[in-house]
């Protein structure tokens, strides 16, 4: 137990901050994912074949390639890509992106592919009559989406989004390979310096279980909120 003490003697505070880091990366990645879903869901639902192709390419490639490979692509290729863009604008210094941004972008793109599929499924399962009725009532495009489609879509999407959240949360453990100090990386450091990997990795597992358990409870509340009236 003294291994988990707070302060200089134990790893309690380090692991606590690492847990906060995991939560921060997961939330950022989830939001980045929503952003991607916002772009790619309309593409997948579009009438135009080329746009469909772009949307399908994104979801198929990301969901068919291991997360770790995507992370390596970002980790090794991230600063190169940014520097290439910067060189177009005449900036030639070395740019290093921090691990947090690289990690949440990589996980965000992965999470976005899953979110896109969830939103597409949810929108497609809304009754066509709802779209038509909104149109007939003369509600503008923004109102149609925001007041009529979105609330119905959320109710259908939340259970699946909760799965996406779980996947995202667990995927953040892979960012540890880039050196960002989240739960997994901190456990690795602690295990290395105390030579007690069994304890620290088991403790990491407990932390992850706790995070998934708490988030499930919170999401269930949201689910109840959005399905009132059903």
């Amino acid at each position, binding site marked *: 137990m003294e291994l988990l003490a707070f302060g200089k003697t134990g790893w309690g505070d380090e692991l606590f901050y690492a847990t906060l880091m995991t939560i921060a990366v997961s939330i950022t990645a989830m939001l980045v994912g929503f952003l991607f879903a916002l772009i790619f869901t309309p593409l997948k639902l579009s009438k135009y074949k080329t746009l469909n192709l772009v949307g399908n390419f994104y979801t*198929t*490639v990301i*969901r*068919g*390639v*291991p*997360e*770790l*490979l995507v992370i*390596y*692509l970002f980790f*090794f*290729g991230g600063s*190169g890509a940014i520097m290439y863009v910067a060189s177009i604008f005449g900036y030639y210094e070395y740019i290093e992106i921090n691990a947090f941004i690289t990690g949440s972008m990589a996980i965000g793109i992965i999470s976005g592919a899953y979110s896109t599929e969830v939103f597409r499924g949810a929108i497609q399962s809304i009754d066509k009559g709802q779209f038509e009725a909104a149109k007939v009532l003369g509600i503008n495009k923004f109102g149609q989406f925001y007041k009529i489609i979105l609330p119905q879509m959320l109710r259908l999407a939340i259970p699946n989004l909760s799965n996406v959240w*779980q996947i995202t949360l*667990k*995927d953040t*453990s*892979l960012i*540890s*390979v880039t050196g960002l100090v989240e739960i*997994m990386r901190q*456990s*690795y450091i602690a*295990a290395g310096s105390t*030579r*007690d*990997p*069994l304890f620290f*990795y*088991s403790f*990491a*597992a407990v932390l*992850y*279980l706790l995070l*998934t*358990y708490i988030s499930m409870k919170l999401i269930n509340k949201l689910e109840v909120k959005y399905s009132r009236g059903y």
Partner: protein
Amino acid sequence: MDFDLMITSFPKLLGATLVTLKLLSASLFFGLFLGLFFAILRLSKNTFINKFAYGYSYIFRGTPLLVQIFIIYFGLGQIEYLRTTFLWVILKEPYWCAIIAFTLNTGAYTSEILRSAFQTIKPGIIEAGKSLGISNKIIFYKIQIPIAIRQSLPAYGNEIILMMKGTSLASTVTLMDLTGVAKYIISTTFKPIEVFIVAGGIYLFMTFIIHNVIKYLEKKYSFQQ
């Protein structure tokens, strides 16, 4: 774009794909039995057995695969007692540790898939079997299991693809699978995009094959023929 690198790295990555496929097939094979075993436990009326099976699937589905591999590979070696038993022959090999971790992980997901498949079987089918005088054992093996397998095919197909992506974590315990070799080539040549295209292409090809095989099986064993 460095096409030469893409061409020269292709055979190396293809060789590493063999390791990925070995890991995948071994863990799926063992995982299917483990999953079936725990699915049956989940259906048991005994609360203790039921809770035990639920706990197993909850723990393995609620924690990242990376943690599971690290506990088995780095953690278990720490137990002095284990080093003296015959288990150490298996546990000192990263290859077997990875397979054990993958098996336990896919077993948890498979047990959930099979459990829900068993639960969707209409009671009428089992009653029909009973009224024909078929014994409980044969009803289970000849009626329930085939129907459950058919029901769970789409979900199990997804699980195979997820597991294929999961095998990439073997590279974190020093195994040179497809991702491991890809990382090695990236870190020696600093050409991430080229290597990603080739390695990602191989993964996508495998996803494509798995997807279509499952689709074929679904069609072949569909109820409306």
